[in-house]
């Protein structure tokens, strides 16, 4: 009776108009220029395109249109190659994506490609749910974001940021320790439980790194939130886009791309600042592409990966404020339009972004499981 509300899916949190905003940003460019840029950089391997067109479309899963600009990613792919995309359960979680590969094995409607969190990419690879593929831009994907054997590959990443509703918060917090100030009573919020929501989990990690912890030690992060709760600043309710905009949860710790999309969506109505906390290396989270071992449309799946990892595809992520995996490579080659860079927070901290590996993630989960409910009391 209680569950009228949609379950908290992986991406259910912010149904924000990243796509719509992205389109708006794009239209700010000289239209011809933007189109030329895309025309020059999307994959044009004619043999692959011809083979992909013979497949029965492309089955994707869990790509929310308003998340990291997937609406545009899908429509551009369809427009360029004339291949129809069937995107199943847009709001499914990583766990559900893997389940779909297992349960739809051998069926025409099984997913061809998935977009999952790194720990789920590792599970999928270990279980043999994926097949290797190396896109032509493979070498410019950072090594710490891909499987050496090509089973999975990071596509985009974000870092932990503070989304601050400035109509409620007069002085925006700049560092993690600023959050402890008494002026932020009842204001600091996560997007769910750190044991269930990726961004909330990352927030505890980021707080740890700012307080003497490291990727190997999330403990200080838990202690930080315990302190935050004790000071009365931690608001344990689940932040939503609506609660940030209305000011019920005026400081939301979340991925930069979600906070940025929210800020731009509400431009002119309410000022939302997005800040990457200073004084510590930013904590990053990425998602991974992988091709299902049982992909019913294998060639179309490969073409999709080529498209996603082309300059054109990677720029689509960036339009949705998600940093593409090949960001540094593209910046150094000067293919990222200035205007797009201006929409983002300063690039400097992103150079030091830290990603945890599997062992570090698991260690942190185990500590969180036992300590979070014990230590953090409001």
């Amino acid at each position, binding site marked *: 009776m209680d569950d009228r*509300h949609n379950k908290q899916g992986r991406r259910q949190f912010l149904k924000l108009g990243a796509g719509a905003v992205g389109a708006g940003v794009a239209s700010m460019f000289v239209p011809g220029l933007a189109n030329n840029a895309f025309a020059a950089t999307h994959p044009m391997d004619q043999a692959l395109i011809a083979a992909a067109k013979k497949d029965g479309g492309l089955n994707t899963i869990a790509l929310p249109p308003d998340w990291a600009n997937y609406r545009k990613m899908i429509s551009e792919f369809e427009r360029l190659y004339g291949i129809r995309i069937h995107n199943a359960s847009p709001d499914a979680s990583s*766990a559900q994506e893997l389940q779909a590969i297992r349960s739809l094995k051998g069926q025409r409607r099984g997913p061809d490609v998935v977009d999952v969190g790194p720990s789920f990419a590792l599970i999928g690879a270990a279980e043999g749910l994926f097949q290797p593929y190396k896109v032509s831009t493979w070498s410019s994907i950072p090594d710490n974001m891909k499987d050496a054997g090509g089973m999975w590959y990071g596509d985009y990443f974000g870092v932990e940021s503070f989304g601050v509703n400035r109509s409620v918060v007069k002085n925006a917090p700049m560092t993690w320790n600023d959050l402890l100030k008494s002026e932020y009573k009842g204001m600091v919020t996560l997007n*769910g439980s750190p044991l269930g*929501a990726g961004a909330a989990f990352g927030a505890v990690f980021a707080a740890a790194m700012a307080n003497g912890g490291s990727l190997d030690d999330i403990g200080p992060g838990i202690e930080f939130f315990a302190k935050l709760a004790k000071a009365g600043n931690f608001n*344990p309710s*689940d932040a939503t886009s609506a609660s940030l905009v209305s000011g019920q949860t005026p400081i939301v710790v979340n991925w930069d791309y979600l906070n940025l999309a929210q800020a731009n969506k509400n431009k002119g109505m309410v000022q939302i600042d997005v800040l990457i906390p200073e004084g510590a290396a930013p904590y990053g989270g990425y998602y991974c592409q992988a091709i299902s071992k049982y992909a019913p449309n294998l060639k179309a799946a490969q073409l999709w990966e080529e498209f996603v990892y082309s300059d054109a595809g990677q720029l689509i992520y960036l339009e949705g404020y998600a940093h593409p995996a090949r960001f540094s490579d593209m910046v150094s080659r000067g293919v990222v339009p200035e205007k797009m860079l201006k929409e983002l927070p300063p690039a400097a901290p992103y150079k030091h972004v830290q990603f945890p590996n599997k062992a570090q993630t698991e260690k942190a989960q185990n500590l969180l499981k036992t300590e979070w409910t014990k230590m*953090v009391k*409001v």
Partner: protein
Amino acid sequence: MSTVVRSTPAGARLRSGTKLLTLIFIGPFLLYMLAFLILPALRLFDQAFSGEHGFTLKYIAQLGQEQTVKAFVNSVVLSSVSSLVGLVVGGIVAYLILRPGAPRGLRSMVTSFSAVAANFAGVPLAFAFVSTLGSLGMVTVWLKSLGVNLYASGFSLYSVTGLVIVYAYFQIPLMVIVIAPAIEGLRREWREAAENLGASSWTYWRHVGLPILLPSLLSSYILLFGNAFAAYATPYALTSGILALVPVEISNVLSGNVMLSPQTGAALSLGMIGVMVVIMLIYVVAARRASRWTRQ
């Protein structure tokens, strides 16, 4: 129906007609039960006991972990207390609006409000309470200006106590709805008869009213308990997991983005089924005792 069935040929036809009706209407229900209740439950059973290398008790053993035990204790305490609050307050409200002499409009007003409130849950409910009883909520701030500091005195909306208050918001109205027919069934004549024999109001309730209502009260309690026990969206939106509760733990391991352990989820679900079975057994025994008078 028995009056019609007497004449044999027509009756036989009618009876086979009833059979057909039963098949058409009850059959799908049973199928539905099989597909969406019994088979999934069996699957849970299978999942909870199978590891990478066949049979394992690993996941069931996880139920003994400190964290999990705490989640079960919290869930059971929260459900039983919030149901008790619902039972008592809802029962009294239902009686007051149905009592002979109660204003007519009051009754329809309360029942229609209850129908709405019993279904008001999840994120909107959580935020309604955050903005009234949260640490910066309207009521909290107002009480503070009167010199009553709720949070300094140990109260927190994000604790079991806080959740009991939040749950009461949908438990009480649900109780009003489910108990109303039983209270309406109390005949005026019974009370009059008791009073004529010199019973006080207390004696009437002690020996007539409550014993008649008891079976319905018990089953209402079970319903409220199950309602609270399975509640997920409200506590999640309100506490983001700082309070361990079984449904939230299940969602963390089953559909979260941080951990994945469907088997642990299955084991936790079996634990929940176990708790419900125990509650149902207590109910069966209690209901049998409570309805002894009907057999005398």
